[in-house]
């Protein structure tokens, strides 16, 4: 798109000639038809349902087609508490989704374990196993927050490049699109986090 002068483009548009690029057209189509995977884990799912229903109406953004199969879904909304017993199934569903795929981590539990963080049975954030595109804080976040995250994701998709050096992750053959499924261990999930993608914050105590 950078090859065409903005002024020329605008002039052409005034004359009824619409000039675009493959990348822009492709991203425009993708960002306006994000189909989420239909599953919910806890109370956040109720807010997600409200977002999908007529009052908030996620259909305005092209995301109303909740798919019951990961094979047809573009977006995974991790809406709620991920227990350690559920985590392998979530990762498996993510692996079964075709590229390009995106993840919204919705609510305090999905981000970090939330109020259950110090417990034994709740995963301390789904980003321990799969890469997350947008995080929504809240307990649970309101539907407006989910819509905001959805729009953030649309912005992100719009900026993805199809070619060149900084092209989108899903077009890079070296980028993994599947991640190892954790196993049920004797005391915890094994491994407790995927070290390749999980970068926890460090506490600075020496300042």
């Amino acid at each position, binding site marked *: 798109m950078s090859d065409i002068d903005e002024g020329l483009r605008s002039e052409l548009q005034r004359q009824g000639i619409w000039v675009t690029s493959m990348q822009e057209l492709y991203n425009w189509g993708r960002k306006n038809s994000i189909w989420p995977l239909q599953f919910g884990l806890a109370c956040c799912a109720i807010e997600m349902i409200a977002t999908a229903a007529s009052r908030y109406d996620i259909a305005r953004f092209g995301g109303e087609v909740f798919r019951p199969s990961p094979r047809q879904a573009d977006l995974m909304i991790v809406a709620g508490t991920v227990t350690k*017993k559920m985590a392998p199934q979530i990762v498996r569903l993510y692996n079964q989704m075709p590229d390009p795929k995106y993840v919204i981590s919705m609510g305090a539990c999905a981000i970090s374990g939330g109020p259950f963080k110090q417990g*034994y049975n709740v995963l301390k954030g789904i980003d321990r196993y799969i890469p997350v595109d947008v995080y929504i804080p809240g307990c649970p976040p309101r539907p407006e927050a989910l819509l905001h995250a959805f729009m953030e994701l649309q912005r992100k998709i719009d900026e993805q490049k199809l070619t060149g050096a900084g092209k989108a992750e899903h077009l890079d053959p070296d980028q993994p699109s599947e991640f190892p499924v954790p196993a049920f261990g*004797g*005391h*915890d999930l094994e491994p*407790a986090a995927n070290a390749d993608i999980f970068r926890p914050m460090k506490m600075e*105590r*020496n300042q």
Partner: protein
Amino acid sequence: MMESLEQIKSQIESAILGAKIDIVPNAGPSQQSSLLIDNGHARKVAKFLRDHPALRFDFCTNATGVDWLERVVTKKVKVKKIVEGTEKEEEETQQEKIPGYLEAVYHLYSIEHKHGPIIIRLRTDDRGEGTRLPSLTPIWRSAEFQEREIFDLYGIRFEGHPDLRRILMWDEFKDYPMRKDYREPDDYEYEPTPHDDVLEKAKQHYAPRPQLDGAENITAQP
């Protein structure tokens, strides 16, 4: 109106030979004392409570576990002693060591007579190998999942249970998380404002704050 716990206890003891029932008093505001039933006669006693026409406890609403760690109880006991030829009564403090055990607690109601609850307890021998109790699922079907939960979280093995498996945790899990000596796996993660137990964990995971030389308390004079 339901009969008193003492009356129920004597009814059970006269109906079932050899049944040993203790009343565990609860001095709290609820005043809900409970019956401690010996494991050998537990199923017979349960059947009696369910089927006796005046009692008819036909509904088990709740079954749960309790973990009692080994504890020391100090008691004041009057001891007779012979001091200089005369017998004297002296008070002595004795310490009694009570070994740990696990309990299963059942709350029973009668839908037919609209009375209840009555609370019965079963007690294991210890917290190690002897954590076995008779299952009351054959008497009250509603106890099935709850006994599985007790097995999952406390590790009490219910003998005679039709399907004793873990229900909340995965099958490969080895610990019993609701026991008081359980420690969760240490996968500590950054906390912005650690406190209490979390602060203790945080200290283990980070180098201690360097010794300060006192200069940080000196403020510039205007």
